[in-house]
């Protein structure tokens, strides 16, 4: 395991700037999540670190060593692809053993057998070891794919939305499992996702990407509580943060736009809001409100019955302020 440092890395495909001047340090043993929508440059960042793409400018250090001129094999990274790319002509066992048999690792066969068996048990697929890779279900394929990375002990694990193709239950199980494995091994892991639950639950640090730039890098708590912009604030939190004109609410404001998460909204007295709809999710109830024609979503006590069309009063608790361009005003 090692520290990975990115210094101003950039990559363009034709006129598209996929990654633009990203600098960050992924500490030894950190679980870093890159968060952003499709096209933000998450996958390209992973591919630049792995060496599958060459840098236009900048440098990558893995364990203090400049790896810019190294091949992917020499960089000692393991990667899980979004599409589970198992070798279709091999069995599950041979797929898992494939990286261990590489000319770089040249692991003895008895050690391969032991490691493959161990990782198969962790991923709950020991009974599938002698199946052809193509004879597995989607969930099993992706578990083997993750296993093929975990069977090694590389400087860093790179994972590109590894859980996005799985069903909800398996995704939740593997999320917990992955976090546990990472914590046990003390691995350095860079994980790409657009799923905020994965980001919040697994990450020690989150990097938020916007159009190829790293706009904020910090702990999940920092990113959630102190977003630098509307864009970052919108990445985390369910229901999403509400961005409204400050003038809707009485009192002095630090900026023209106000950002309200459910915990910033207290019911009782204050500004009038009309209830448009309420959604009962079991453990919580979502209230869709309207303040002078502006929609607003918040949470409420599931036991409280709110009639559609009723008017309630809300007041603000330490909301976030943003300027007209969306930048945070503290």
């Amino acid at each position: 395991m090692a520290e990975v440092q990115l210094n101003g890395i950039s990559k363009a495909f034709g006129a598209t700037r996929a990654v633009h001047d990203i600098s960050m340090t992924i500490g030894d043993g950190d679980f870093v999540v890159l968060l952003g929508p499709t096209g933000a440059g998450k996958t390209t960042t992973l591919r630049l670190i792995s060496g599958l793409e060459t840098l236009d400018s900048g440098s990558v250090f893995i364990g203090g060593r400049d790896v810019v001129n190294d091949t992917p094999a020499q960089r000692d990274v393991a990667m899980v692809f979004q599409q589970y790319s198992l070798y279709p002509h091999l069995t599950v066992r041979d797929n898992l053993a494939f990286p261990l048999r590489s000319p770089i690792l040249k692991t003895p066969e008895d050690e391969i057998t032991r490691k493959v068996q161990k990782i198969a048990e962790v991923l709950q697929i020991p009974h599938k070891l002698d199946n052809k890779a193509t004879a597995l279900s989607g969930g099993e394929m992706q578990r083997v794919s993750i296993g093929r990375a975990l069977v090694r002990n590389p400087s860093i694990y790179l994972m590109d939305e590894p859980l996005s193709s799985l069903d909800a239950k398996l995704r939740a199980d593997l999320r917990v499992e992955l976090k546990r494995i990472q914590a046990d091994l003390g691995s350095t892991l860079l994980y790409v996702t657009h799923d905020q639950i994965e980001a919040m639950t697994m990450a020690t640090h989150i990097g938020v990407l916007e159009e190829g730039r790293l706009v904020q890098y910090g702990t999940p708590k920092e990113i959630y509580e102190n977003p630098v912009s509307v864009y970052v604030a919108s990445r985390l939190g369910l229901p999403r943060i509400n961005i409204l004109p400050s003038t809707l609410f009485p009192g002095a404001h630090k900026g023209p736009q106000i950002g309200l998460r459910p915990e910033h909204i207290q019911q009782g007295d204050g500004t009038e809001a009309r209830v448009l709809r309420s959604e009962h999710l079991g453990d919580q109830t979502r209230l869709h409100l309207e303040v002078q024609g502006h929609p607003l979503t918040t949470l409420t006590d599931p036991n409280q019955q709110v009639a559609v069309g009723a008017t309630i009063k809300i007041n603000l608790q330490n909301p976030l302020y943003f300027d007209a361009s969306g930048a945070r005003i503290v």
Partner: protein
Amino acid sequence: MSSFSVNEPSVRTKWFAGTLVILYAIITMIPLVWIAMTGFKSPADAISYPPKYIIGSDSDAGFQPTLEGYVNLFTTRTRQTQDYLEANPPESWADEIVRKYDMVIVGPSKFGERFLNSVIIGFGSTFLSVFLGTLAAYAFSRFKIPLADDLLFFILSTRMMPPIAVAIPIFLMFRNLGLSDTHLGMILLYTAVNISLAVWLLKSFIDGIPTEYEEAALIDGYTRFQAFYKVVLPQAATGIASTAIFCLIFAWNEYAFAVLLTTANAQTAPPFIPTIIGIGGLDWPAIAAGVTLFLLPVMVFTILLRKHLLRGITFGAVRK
């Protein structure tokens, strides 16, 4: 409405399609069966009219199978006097067959040699075409090559005229280079003709193999060549097998260049077989025997590779 579903043809359609396929098979098989049958006839039966087509029957349409054709194909014979024949009893079953015509076997014919030439040149050029074609196709498929499209078009353009159109320049070139009537010359020539087909066919197969596999292998600690060898090649097996069959069929059947460029040393079977002369004209049973044997290798090769011709083994392991 299952009877109108696109997946499941109706029983009547199946019967119709089946009948059509069987009829077509019979029509195309007739010449082959006729050739195979002629190989086992005596020269007289081979040219008799009405034709004889029932094996082992005493009726007018029947003939007794004999190995005469095969014996004549593999041997050279000479006519001998009665005194000689009486003094020297037949040495083998083959010798006995030719005694009917007052002849004795004096040695092997050139057929074995010519057949071997066909094997060397056919399989040699097939191997070379597929080997070079796979490497070129991989490069065209995966790397950014300057002017790749123009190069591919240039490769294809070599097929835009019949190869025999360049026979005279090739004839002169071969003479100057000392390649005339050599195995190497014929292997190079057939490879040059086949390589365009090989590159284009294989490129489309390799294009169909997702790059994720190689990228995974590169990260798993393998070099580009090892990734190609361990991951791409096994998945391209289908394409390689079908390309090899196409290349072999061309090289094996090629006649015009073989007539022009080969004589005593590297002559292949196609120009040799029609020159088999028997007593009083062409020896049809021997020719038919030669053709029958000549057809076998391509058939066996195709049967051996047939499991690779079925696609589907690689589908489903990368989510699209």
